[in-house]
């Protein structure tokens, strides 16, 4: 600043000088934002189909399809999956039937519950594999009928399959871990509602390989252990390990006070925390690539930390139920109030590509986010 300029500013009133400082500060801030934003752009990865080994579709909380038309995102998922069904795996991440799972036959709600499940089974193209993971609503909305409702859902899935390769994992109301190996993929499925259910979780028909918290944790530890170079270990369950949605104590006035409510479905509750601690302890020293969940009705890609590389929340399977999500310090991507699903492509080389699709689309593309997941 030369002497003339100094003299000029000395003549200005205080407000003008204050304004000058404010403008300079704002300009610097905007410049910083622009400079910083240049380093982050969503890239649309175009993959050659012959380079893809296995494709997974992750969709959760889809148990409330519109009764008049199925619509997005189930329709869009079905179209993408039909492109190469032989290498496609579709995982429904729980809450497959709202609001109370499958009731006993003869109940007034039975036909509508069947319709809700049927819309999802029909979205699985012939030749593709479909997996249904149980959620809290599938356990009769966490009521005493839960265990029986889960078994009814498993039977109904089998009856609706009509030649499709579709099943419930884990089955028979067992906590898991149930596993599936497809090429480099090692999928471990858990029924996390089993951990949180306050009513009967086993009976004489159960015959589960692991049926106590200790044996389930030990079996999970065994299953996530790396089984050779290049294996992609994914753990799928209904309840998330971390979320910026309503079950994480965000979104709404009651958010931080939900810890006092003691709702086991919330991250802040003691029983939910105990379950997550057990799962994390099983991952200790051998982190899976991703822990995949639903439960909160939004789409989130989160940094997992020491015990798991990535945390995915894909619970936006029903357009009518989408909810708020806040961006947390661990968030890579957050989509709120939009329906959608995630897609993971395991490449024949070493790469694993995650893509997030949301509806209604932003602009012309429903692809909202993509990221190469790093395999340790």
């Amino acid at each position, binding site marked *: 600043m030369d002497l003339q300029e100094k003299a000029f500013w000395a003549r200005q009133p*205080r407000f003008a*000088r*204050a304004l000058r*400082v*404010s403008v300079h*500060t*704002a300009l*610097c*801030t905007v410049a*910083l*934002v622009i400079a*910083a*934003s240049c380093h*982050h752009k969503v890239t649309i990865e175009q993959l050659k189909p012959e380079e893809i080994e296995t494709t997974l579709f992750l969709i959760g909380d889809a148990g409330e399809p519109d009764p008049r038309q199925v619509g997005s995102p189930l329709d869009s998922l079905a179209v993408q999956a039909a492109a190469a069904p032989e290498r496609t795996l579709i995982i429904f991440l729980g809450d497959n039937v709202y609001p109370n799972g499958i009731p006993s036959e003869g109940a007034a709600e039975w036909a509508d519950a069947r319709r809700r499940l049927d819309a999802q089974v029909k979205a699985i193209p012939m030749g593709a594999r479909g997996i249904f993971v149980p959620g809290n609503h599938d356990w009769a909305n966490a009521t005493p009928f839960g265990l029986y409702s889960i078994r009814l859902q498993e039977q109904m899935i089998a009856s609706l399959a009509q030649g499709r390769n579709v099943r419930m994992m884990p089955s028979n109301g067992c906590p898991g871990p149930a596993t599936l190996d497809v090429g480099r993929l090692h999928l471990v499925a858990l029924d996390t509602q089993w951990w949180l259910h306050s009513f009967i979780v086993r009976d004489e028909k159960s015959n589960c390989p692991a049926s106590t918290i200790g044996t389930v944790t030990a079996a999970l530890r065994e299953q996530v252990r790396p089984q050779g170079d290049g294996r992609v270990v994914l753990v799928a369950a209904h309840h998330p*390990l*971390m979320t*910026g949605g309503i079950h*994480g*104590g*965000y*979104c*709404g*006035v009651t*958010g*931080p006070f939900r810890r006092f409510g003691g709702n086991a479905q919330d*991250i*802040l509750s003691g029983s939910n*925390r105990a379950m*997550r601690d057990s799962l994390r302890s099983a991952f200790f020293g051998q982190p899976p690539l991703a822990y995949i969940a639903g439960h909160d009705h939004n789409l989130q890609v989160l*940094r997992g*930390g*020491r015990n798991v590389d990535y945390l995915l929340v894909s619970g936006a399977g029903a357009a009518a139920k989408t909810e*708020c*999500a*806040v*961006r*947390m*310090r*661990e968030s890579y*991507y*957050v*989509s*709120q*109030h*939009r329906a959608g699903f995630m897609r993971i492509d395991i490449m024949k080389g070493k790469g694993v590509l995650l893509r997030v699709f949301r509806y209604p689309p932003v602009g012309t593309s429903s692809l909202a986010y993509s990221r190469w997941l790093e395999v340790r």
Partner: protein
Amino acid sequence: MTPPIRIISAFASIHTARSFLLFAAAMSGPSLVRAQAAESLPVLTVEATPIGALPPLALPMPASRDHNYWGFRFQVGQRRERGPEDLLTAAVGIDYQVAGGSIFGLTGGHQWRQNCQPSINDCSGHNLYGARARFNLMTGGSTIAGLVGDKAATSTLGTEFGFGYAPNVTESVHACTFDAGLPLSIAMLERIRLVTFVTPGVVWDIDCSSANIPSLRSYLLGFGLGLQQLAFRGLDVHVGAQRIFRGTTGMQYGISITWVRLP
């Protein structure tokens, strides 16, 4: 009464009045000084502690409910146009964010007087210390996102309480202040978060020396802009300004750089 007597009487009245005014002025001189001191010292004590000396900050960014994070903070603030001298303050702080929400922090720093005239004023600097608790009451996105047209927007409403202490602000005067506020932050954009914030509050100064300074209540308003999740996701930079609504306190401008240690 004869006219000469009236004239003398009038003179006497003028003299009496003049004498009274002179006497009153002589008597009121120290009172005015005392009144000014009574008014300016509490303001100075507010300006001298971290509550009035350091720039305001946005509410903490939401984080994992399973982790508690340590944060390390560097702040510089300058209070200008407050009268004969400016106040420059630099401080470091440590924060502890509990379960992705509330923050408890400690601050220590030093304040210098700029453009000070040693022949008139006490120009020595002093240390300052503070403690602050900030609670996120409500964190959501929907309403604000709709208003600002950014689907990634998050708004946070919280409350905060702080205590500030600065020994030897002037000779034998130690400053103690307590404040309460109701901050609001709105964060936008996807990867790097652009946050705007406003921190209205009220501050009380407490006499914690033997100077018999009357305690006063003042209102504060802080506001600013920030960038969160810069570089390696744990780096936040905020620029802010603060106004104390009492006397000639000018405006305070400053910058805060915070690094949150993520696992």
